[in-house]
């Protein structure tokens, strides 16, 4: 196992250092990234027609880094994660093409059995709805010890002790006794802690958290996110945070992908994307969120129009009907994600003009 050395225990310091390194240095060319997603396409064949939920998505996740995926509902965030895990419901879903290289091996070519092993100790996932992902008729202890037995070969009391340790680690007091509790006896926040314990139980190299805190109250959300960030940075686990909350990404992610209608429209370091956004959709999103770090202005400057129907996308750039910068070219051809400046990528024909005006607006 080529684990990264453990970063320092202090989460803030670790993160800042990480971000600096990413901005100034080139990524190490010797070892490939932990995860490489290449031109991933996933569709759903429904009675009402075909929906291309993920329409050619490519991105990397480096060992130990935190990647954010943002975008509004239906843009394909969850389907991207489910495709990586090979958990897309079939039918109606089909992974049409692409590669998902995890430590160099293409998961899309794995047998179901090999995939089971990856899900246990290679990639952990936390879902939005803790109640639906915990089994209501099994005790918490049973649900934590199961992966320990299957993947690490821990049995009986040793598995139970490890399970109690894991509960301690996620901040559930009186952990030995709580192992016998059932999911309904826990609060929403506690259930999400248990999910984190299970997802991290076999020390995966990658943890995918899909809206893991969205259903929780803000103060509990803050607790859980800090916990997740601290644990993954202690263990050297790479983290993919999927959320529609731009604030969460700003706080926790080193880099981010902004998705719209099945495609990544902009990616880069958090600093780049938030400070010099170059895609009109990114700017629209940033102008739509109420933010406590700025004076309360009277009005928002929202993106006009509606999120398009995924089964009936506009021609050319899917954002075109809502875009202030759109020209004739945007109607005929679909823009692809191209490098923009240093480490930023943008899928927009007008990105140069957009970035210039966004800099004016943001400074």
């Amino acid at each position: 196992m080529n684990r990264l050395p453990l970063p320092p225990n202090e989460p803030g310091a670790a993160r800042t250092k990480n971000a600096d390194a990413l901005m100034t240095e080139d990524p190490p060319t010797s070892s490939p990234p932990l995860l490489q997603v290449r031109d991933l396409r996933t569709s759903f064949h429904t009675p009402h027609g075909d929906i291309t939920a993920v329409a050619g998505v490519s991105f990397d996740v480096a060992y130990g880094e935190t990647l954010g995926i943002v975008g509004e509902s239906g843009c394909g965030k969850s389907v991207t994660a489910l495709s990586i895990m090979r958990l897309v419901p079939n039918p109606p879903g089909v992974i049409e093409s692409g590669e998902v290289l995890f430590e160099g091996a293409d998961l899309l070519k794995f047998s179901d059995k090999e995939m089971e092993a990856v899900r246990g100790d290679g990639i952990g996932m936390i879902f939005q709805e803790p109640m639906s992902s915990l089994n209501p008729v099994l005790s918490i202890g049973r649900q934590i010890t199961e992966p320990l037995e299957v993947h690490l070969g821990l049995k009986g009391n040793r598995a139970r002790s490890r399970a109690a340790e894991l509960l301690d680690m996620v901040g559930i007091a009186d952990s030995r006794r709580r192992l016998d509790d059932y999911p309904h006896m826990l609060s929403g926040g506690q259930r999400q802690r248990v999910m984190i314990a299970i997802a991290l139980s076999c020390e995966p190299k990658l943890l995918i958290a899909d809206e893991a805190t969205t259903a929780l109250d803000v103060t509990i959300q803050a607790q859980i996110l800090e916990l997740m960030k601290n644990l993954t940075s202690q263990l050297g686990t790479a983290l993919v945070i999927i959320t529609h909350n731009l604030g969460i990404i700003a706080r926790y992610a080193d880099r981010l992908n902004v998705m719209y209608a099945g495609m990544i429209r902009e990616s880069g370091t958090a600093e780049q994307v938030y400070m010099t956004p170059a895609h009109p959709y990114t700017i629209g999103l940033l102008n739509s969120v109420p933010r406590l770090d700025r004076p309360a202005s009277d009005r928002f400057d929202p993106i006009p129009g509606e999120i398009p129907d995924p089964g009936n996308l506009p021609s050319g750039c899917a954002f075109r009907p809502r875009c202030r910068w759109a020209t004739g070219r945007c109607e005929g051809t679909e823009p692809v994600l191209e490098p923009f400046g240093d480490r930023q990528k943008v899928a927009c024909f007008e990105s140069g003009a957009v970035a210039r005006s966004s800099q004016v607006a943001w400074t």
Partner: protein
Amino acid sequence: MTASTALQESWSKLGKFAPTLPEPLLSVRDLNVHFPIRRGFVIQREVARVRAVDGISFDIRPGETLGLVGESGSGKTTAAKAVIQLSKPRSGSIKFEGQELVGLSTSAMRSVRRKMGMVFQDPYGSLNPRMRAGDIVGEPLKVHGLATSRDDYRSQIASLLSIVGLAPAMAERYPNEFSGGQRQRLGVARAIAAKPSLLILDEAVSALDVSIQAQILNLLQDLQEQYDLAYLFIAHDLSVVRHIADRVAVMYMGRIVETANSADLYTRPLHPYTQALLSAIPTPNPIHERSRERIILKGDLPSPLAPPSGCRFHTRCPIATDVCSMTVPELRSLAPDQRAACLLAPGYAESAI
């Protein structure tokens, strides 16, 4: 910065004051709404009770927005339902335009209800799927007899739809043909149909995507200006509330722990819970976020069936002392138009209620 030095800083901004307030449109005093938990087959015995709303008071003046915030289960919806008499208060007073609503007959309440519109959280569940959009919007016109003829009914619907930014031709469609944001516009159109003076918006924008949420918030601000509407705006997202509310009341486990005008609440929160709530919200600014210390509360929300003694926040409060578990703090005036229920807040001991 530790939680207590952050509080010290916030508290140090307190000044001198002399309150003067205009007549309220809605005035709620000592409102209590409890839900008994019953067990037993033949004879149902009350085994416990949830004090969902436990002695709250607030005012809303004409044309003003009061933001009501707090965690899940803090009693926001229950309080709103009591105002329109959908949940029955155990005690307390609710005065609307000077008229007492508690104990009012159903028929008398119906004419009051015309002046109160309500928009709910769920843009999917709150509209009757078998009614056309036009009739959904026009329903209050029928109920209160506000249309003089069939033509008048149709033209009122058309103008309501265009006020909320929908094409009048959409009146013929059914709710499932609308997007989430459009459905919420329909909900707003129906709520203002009978020309109310108060709109109750219970998590009305919470389920919407940010770009659509911003559109609806703008619409609400325009409507308020144009029609001098007062809003009771319920949300758990303090950053949304800041944009729309003139004053804010923060609830915790059935009680209001702080109420103030927006500007003061956000720059100088006096209650430790308000401060933790504000601190927990991440802002979309990576540089600011990474340098910022946050107050992370410990522990879970207590069970509503067994609320903590004394100050209900004491189990999670970063600055609580022994006295906090023994004495129930009152909501006291600590600054102009700012009241807080914290035993340790500056001036608490000296001030009257």
